[in-house]
């Protein structure tokens, strides 16, 4: 076996001493790291469950943003095949062309328009709330996509309906029948149809039923392995005692461990789809570093 001679020679003397300095620096850093790790270990013992949960919830928030992006992609896909909702088109060169004269689909638009006006002239509090919630969702979604015009329109209409200013609302509604306004139109249609009560009830029940699963999926999506993610969620659930259900309840309620394996597989598929979709849309993946830093801050002594 070839033997290496690490002793300095006249030819490599300078390099040797440079390496020597590098080693000294490394040793110093390792000592510092070791001291820091000891501090972290001490700090780790003092971390409250609440602080740990906060980190998990940050992961949840990021994952929600990805869901958001996916929903927007789905909406855009659906819009493509419903051009009758538009009165403007964008040419290949990026020029916005106003479509003039009634199109053959004007009837569809008018029908919806009349229905919206009828419903909103004297809306029940639930319909009113649903419309506002729908507009806010639309506004926020488009804000997320940096489409300020739609976000602003959504905010304006939301305020006008809240204040019962029908004239202003009708006028703004007319101007929202633009290409960018299609999301608002669709949301209005939905809001009028369903009413906020049913929407919020559905969301609430989904939230409660899936809280545990969502957290688990968030951890998977953030790169956690299955065993660790499950054990963290389990441990949290046991501590809080709020997510667990008895076996009898689990039969009738889709919560906790029901169909755990299948739901895990489904979730993994969904994560894969989300990531592919985000890639297609050119949207960056989870900013893991941010949350790594967050954890690091958590472990640092408070006075540092």
């Amino acid at each position, binding site marked *: 076996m070839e033997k290496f001679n690490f002793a300095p020679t006249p030819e490599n003397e300078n390099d040797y001493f440079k390496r020597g300095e590098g080693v000294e620096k490394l040793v110093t850093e390792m000592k510092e790291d070791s001291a820091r790790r000891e501090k972290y270990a001490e700090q780790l013992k003092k971390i409250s469950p609440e602080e740990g949960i906060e980190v998990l919830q*940050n992961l949840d928030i990021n994952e929600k943003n990805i869901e958001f992006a996916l929903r927007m992609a789905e909406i855009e896909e659906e819009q493509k095949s419903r051009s009758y909702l538009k009165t403007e088109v964008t040419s290949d060169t990026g020029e916005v062309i106003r479509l003039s004269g009634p199109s053959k689909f004007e009837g569809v638009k008018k029908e919806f328009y009349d229905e919206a006006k009828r419903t909103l002239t004297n809306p029940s509090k639930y319909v009113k709330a649903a419309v506002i919630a729908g507009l806010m969702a639309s506004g*926020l979604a488009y804000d997320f996509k940096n489409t300020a015009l739609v976000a602003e329109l959504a905010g304006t209409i939301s305020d006008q309906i809240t204040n019962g200013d029908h004239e202003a609302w009708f006028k703004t509604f007319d101007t929202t029948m633009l290409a960018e306004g299609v999301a608002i139109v669709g949301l209005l249609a939905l809001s009028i149809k369903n009413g906020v009560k049913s929407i919020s009830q559905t969301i609430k029940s989904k939230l409660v039923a899936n809280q545990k699963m969502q957290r688990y999926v968030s951890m998977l999506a953030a790169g956690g392995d299955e065993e660790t993610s499950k054990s963290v969620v389990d441990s949290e659930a046991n501590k809080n005692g709020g997510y667990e259900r008895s076996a009898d309840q689990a039969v009738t309620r889709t919560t906790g461990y029901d169909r755990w394996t299948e739901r895990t597989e489904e979730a993994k598929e969904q994560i894969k789809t989300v990531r592919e979709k985000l890639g297609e849309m050119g949207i960056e993946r989870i900013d893991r570093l941010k949350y790594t830093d967050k954890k690091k801050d958590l472990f640092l002594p408070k006075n540092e």
Partner: protein
Amino acid sequence: MEIEELKKLAEKVKAGSATNEESIAYLDTVNGLLGEFIVALRSMPTDEQLKQA
């Protein structure tokens, strides 16, 4: 979630001053609404369906 609460939360989320729990609750609500919105959009006829009608 009451509508006024939702509106206040929207402001807090956009201003970056919402707590984690509030942000999650809000994003869940908005995601839920957008999900319903997609269902509504899909129930509207496509250009192709209108041409055939």
